[in-house]
């Protein structure tokens, strides 16, 4: 196996490390599906995956998934049920960690997957929330993965589909009645952002090997904050890479 890895493989490995053993993880599609498999087969053997389509699993599917409802994800599931039952668990605080995709994110971790430009005549109509807003509001903490581009990491998203820390003011989420803890990290192709506990603004926690803070600043649409102790993102381990490469990656689109 080569020591070289793609930035996508690094993102998956970083996402996998967000999953702690015994946690219940709202998995979502694409990279997080692989991240769940990696975590489950390395450091988090008792992590369970939850899928809004109506599934719970305690191990990864045995073959490639184009969607979370593909047959390999159903075979061997712990529970095949209705979406509203899965959402019930999350509304009760039973989901430790969620993954959400987004087209745009801002400094407070708010995600836009709905409209670029005015909703009544958008410049780009994005697909919409899916379960994203539900996860953003109700999971105990969540993580988003994104290609690091200036048009994606923006000062202020034009539409908040999935709320992060709102306007960044202290305790914004609690004051607005959002039950979950909000975004814990933004994993990009260049770095990992994290958030102060209690909310607020994203700061750079680690920069990926081969990238620089200057590059992160250049490619981010807001004036970037940097953590007190910014380090380098640990590269994927051999075990992580092996797990990632055992599965066809799903993020080629």
């Amino acid at each position, binding site marked *: 196996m080569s020591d070289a890895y793609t930035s996508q493989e690094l993102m998956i490995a970083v996402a996998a490390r967000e999953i702690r053993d015994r946690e219940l993880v709202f998995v979502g599609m694409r990279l997080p599906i692989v991240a769940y498999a990696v975590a489950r087969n390395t450091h988090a053997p008792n992590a369970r995956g939850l899928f809004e389509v109506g599934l719970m699993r305690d191990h990864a599917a045995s073959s490639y998934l*184009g969607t979370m409802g593909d047959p390999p994800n159903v075979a061997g599931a712990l529970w095949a049920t209705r*979406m509203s039952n899965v959402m019930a668990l999350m509304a009760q605080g039973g989901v430790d960690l969620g993954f959400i995709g987004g087209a745009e994110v801002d400094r407070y971790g708010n995600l836009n997957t709905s409209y670029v430009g005015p909703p009544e005549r958008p410049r780009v109509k994005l697909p919409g929330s*899916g379960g994203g807003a539900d996860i953003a509001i109700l999971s105990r903490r969540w993580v988003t993965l994104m290609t690091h581009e200036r048009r994606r990491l923006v000062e202020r998203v034009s539409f908040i*589909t999935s709320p992060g820390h709102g306007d960044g003011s202290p305790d914004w989420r609690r004051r607005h009645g959002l039950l979950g803890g909000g975004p814990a990290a933004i994993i990009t192709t260049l770095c990992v952002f994290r958030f102060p506990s209690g909310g607020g603004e994203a700061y750079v926690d680690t920069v990926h090997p081969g990238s620089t803070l200057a590059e992160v600043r250049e490619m981010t649409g807001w004036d970037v904050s940097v953590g007190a102790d910014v380090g380098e993102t640990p590269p994927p381990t051999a075990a992580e890479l092996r797990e990632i490469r055992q599965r066809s990656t799903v993020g080629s689109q």
Partner: protein
Amino acid sequence: MHKNRLSKVMTMAEAIDRFVADGATVALGTSLEPLIPFAAGHELIRQRRQDLELVGPISDSLFDELIGAGCVRRITAAWVGNVSEGLGHCYRRAAEQGIPRSIEIHDHTNFSISMALWAAAWNVPFLPARTLLGSDILRTNPNVREVDGLVHISAVRPDVTILHVQRCDAQGRAHAWGPLGISEEAGLAAERVIISCEELVDPAVTLSDPNRILLPETKVVAVVHEPGGAHPSPVQGFWKRDHALDNAYAAESRTREGYEAWLKRWVLDVPDRKTYMTMVEVDSILITGNRPSEPVNFADE
């Protein structure tokens, strides 16, 4: 014992003709990525249905196809695009440029569209939920509103819900398995239900397991025996997802011309699902294995 029950079996063309009117509110793709009733959607296009309101959570590319064909007045859904690529190109053209017509959009989340259907099922004007707080969807969808720290989600009542399932009998007792998404509430909330199925089975099969019957037969008005009716979406035990074909749709629908060529080839020039399935490379997607559920005993003595 069932001799007095009239059969509800008919063709898809007849079911759509009789039970889906122009302007109807139609729930489709309620199991999210699997069991999407594409055959029904294509028949809606062939019959040139107009002004539909489509209701669903995530239904891969089906809503995008119907929007492109100009059948749709309003989208009441959590997500419209195609799973292969994300962006729905027909959805974009309609929302951004009014091509082929402009559409109204009532944004939901997966949770909120489920609650909207449960509200209709229980015949209440709304259900409260803990989602949508802090989301701009509260600003743009007139049917959700914040009240006392909760969000009240107005009922959405489909005129018709169309479900594809693995097996069904002629009286409309449907067995579906795998994840169910919002199919149960979409069926209960609807005025009427159309079922398409892989296998048309004897009532002895369906009634052997009344717990697996998805909906009361009293809601079901049509049963269409339509093998492959969910293609390219997967059907547990019958069909894998046809990734290649879904990818092709994503690529071809990028331009209006590409979409129109796709539509002609896969929908307009195709008389029915049987013909469509002859155009599909079935070998790679057919599920041939057997992974049977362990029976349970319904004996009463």
